């Protein structure tokens, strides 16, 4: 799996903020151990689901807030393929933005940066050291706008393409048995029409 996230030239989150963010994302989308029911495939135990923070949520947010530290900005990954299933490894070649698109994204990112600064401060520097109920209590008291934003970014980071910084090594996709991008190979007609094979569906 790709890991094109280079250390940012100017970190947008300091170490304390990163720790808080990882704990926040892990509380919003917590990990689950291997072997829990339901097993996604046959008799195999279900692989562990990583927490959104531990799987790279901080890198995801850092890359987003620092998108314009790179040229082209790291907003839209390239294409047409990642190279994981044949074809070229094009995802790492991020696409250019037009001047007007850049204006919109700079505004959006400025708003998010401010929301993270305020929201992470509101959670407190000791947030990562709290137990689960302590964390949930603090999250409950967060500004709802920031709570929604953090949840959206947690989902995007955990289940989006690893090129954006989260979903470390595709571990979340593996846990939910999702191949991710499939082009240019895709699926054969038989895999589409008879995905469970001759025995029929079991899971």
């Amino acid at each position: 799996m790709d890991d094109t996230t280079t250390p940012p030239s100017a970190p947008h989150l300091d170490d304390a903020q990163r720790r808080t963010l990882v704990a926040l994302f892990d509380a919003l989308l917590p990990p689950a151990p291997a072997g829990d029911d339901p097993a996604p495939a046959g008799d195999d135990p279900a692989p562990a689901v990583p927490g959104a923070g531990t799987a790279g949520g901080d890198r995801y947010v850092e890359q987003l807030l620092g998108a314009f530290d790179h040229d082209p900005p790291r907003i839209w990954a390239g294409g047409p393929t990642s190279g994981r299933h044949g074809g070229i490894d094009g995802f790492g070649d991020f696409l250019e933005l037009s001047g007007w698109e850049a204006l919109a994204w700079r505004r959006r990112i400025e708003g998010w940066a401010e929301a993270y600064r305020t929201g992470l401060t509101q959670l407190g520097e000791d947030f990562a050291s709290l137990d689960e109920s302590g964390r949930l209590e603090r999250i409950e008291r967060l500004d709802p706008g920031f709570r929604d934003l953090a949840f959206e970014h947690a989902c995007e980071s955990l289940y989006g393409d690893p090129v954006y910084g989260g979903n470390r090594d595709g571990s979340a996709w593996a846990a939910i048995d999702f191949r991710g991008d499939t082009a240019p190979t895709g699926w054969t007609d038989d895999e589409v029409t008879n995905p469970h094979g001759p025995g029929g569906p079991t899971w």
Partner: protein
Amino acid sequence: MVTDCDAVVVGSGPGGSTAAHALTRAGWDVIVLEKGRNHLLALEPPFGPLGHMSNDELKFTRRHVLGPDPILEPRSFRRDGADGERIHVGDVNNLPSTVGGGGVHADGKLPRFREDDFALRSSLGPVEGADVVDWPIAYADLEPYYAEAERLVGVAGEETNPFAAWRSGPFPMPPGADMFGATLSAPAAERLGLHPYRAPTGANSVPYDGRPACVNCGFCGYYGCPVEAKGDPVALLRAALRTGRCRIVPESLVVGVTRTPDGRTATGVRYLDLSAGPAAGDPPVRELRSRVVVLAGGAFETPRLLLRDGLGNSSDQVGRNLMVHFQTLTVGAFPFRVFGASRGRSVTHVHDDHIVGDDAQRAAARAAGLPWIRGGLVEHGGAAGPVQEALIYGPGRHHPDAMRDSSLRERLWVFTMQGEDLARPENRIDLDPTLRDVWGGPAGRMTWSPHRHELAASAHVGPILEAVLFEAGVEWAVTSTSPPLGEDAAAHPMGLAPASRHIVGTARMGARAEHSVVDPECRLWDCPNVVVCDSSVFCTSTGYGPTLTLIALAARTAALLTGEPLSAADPGSGPR
């Protein structure tokens, strides 16, 4: 008059692409102005793919890569005047704003309309509170252009729909692979007396027109195709470019149609050159002169342009009679994975029965106090990707198991009925009184609420679709609508504005100038060298996706302009 070209085409979606293709083929010089970016194809020979399309959920569904960015181009929505000036600002029925328009990311179910769709008023009669009309043209007028559209785009399909209109020839390609979920839902529908069939789809099932067959990548609806198996609109644009008579200029926002002093003849267009970017201050205003102006900005942006420019509205009909599909969404989860969210072309089967109706549907209409009701095409399809699924479950301990269990993605099967929406003059696009785009132009505002007809049709069909899902083997099924109804509507995750991306009717075609915006050849009554080549001109919404019909209409309009109309086929000449 010295001109820069024969025709300026405003917008490069399916409608504009078709016009550009047909006009250049007839020897006209054409310039296509597109306000969005180009991610589709190189604009220099050999006009190959740019390679920007990919299987990337974030880029396509969360980060506006195909535009428009709602920060730059906000729209507003209200249900009716009681909502005040607006209740929502942002994305309202946005289709991509990019070279290729909405065709780039549509999953391209491309059915034809039926004969009675063009004569709804005469075949079924009026409905109180709605403006049900006949089209000024008939299916037979459009049939040769339907055949041409299917051939140009490359439509894969089969002739097994018992309700389909006659056709002069077969589909250019056989259907592609059936999605597994459809192999369960289609037979179940048949067992309950319905007539499902393989959806006519604008994606290659075999190599066609120099483009490869679909690889069933699973990222179809809402995504650009990474292998170029979708033909609409890339096939049309590439063919136009290859004539050497077409120039496409992205990042060009048309803001006005220039006219002679009497206002009766267009002389060209005025547009903002967005390629300079904000660093240069206000975008430079440029002009192009042409003999003909083709408006193809889509049924939201075309009326917006006409209204901001004060053009074509002597009948006060511009923007009115907006129709969207009233969607009934019936979903259910199988006890096993059906892979609808990850393999195949999003939808592979459909059925039309609720358009045609039966005794039970007629009884439901009577019970609702309506003379008739019509539903729409029901698409049998899969769910969305994992990011979308993750958002639905909400945060908490349950989340990882819910994702592994995947009842709302890989086990989910979705029936979407594209319910026919009756025209009402008060449903409309107009200019928001205060909201502006980033360049200072008035934003478009949608005012829309359903008629009783749509509610009655949805209430009748929902339980039928649930029964089909249970017959197919789901563990549970539930029906909702878009836009949502009831007390909890405001909290609905899909929002209060209709989610349908099928938008039609805002520059209606008619036989009489006082009741319509364009004539039966799609020329503005008020300024006949301006033609409209998008779904604005539709007189009824029908229960079918609009795109093949708008392509056929655009091909017809262009052929009438160049004096090379196709001759009508004989209904008896081909397969029925």
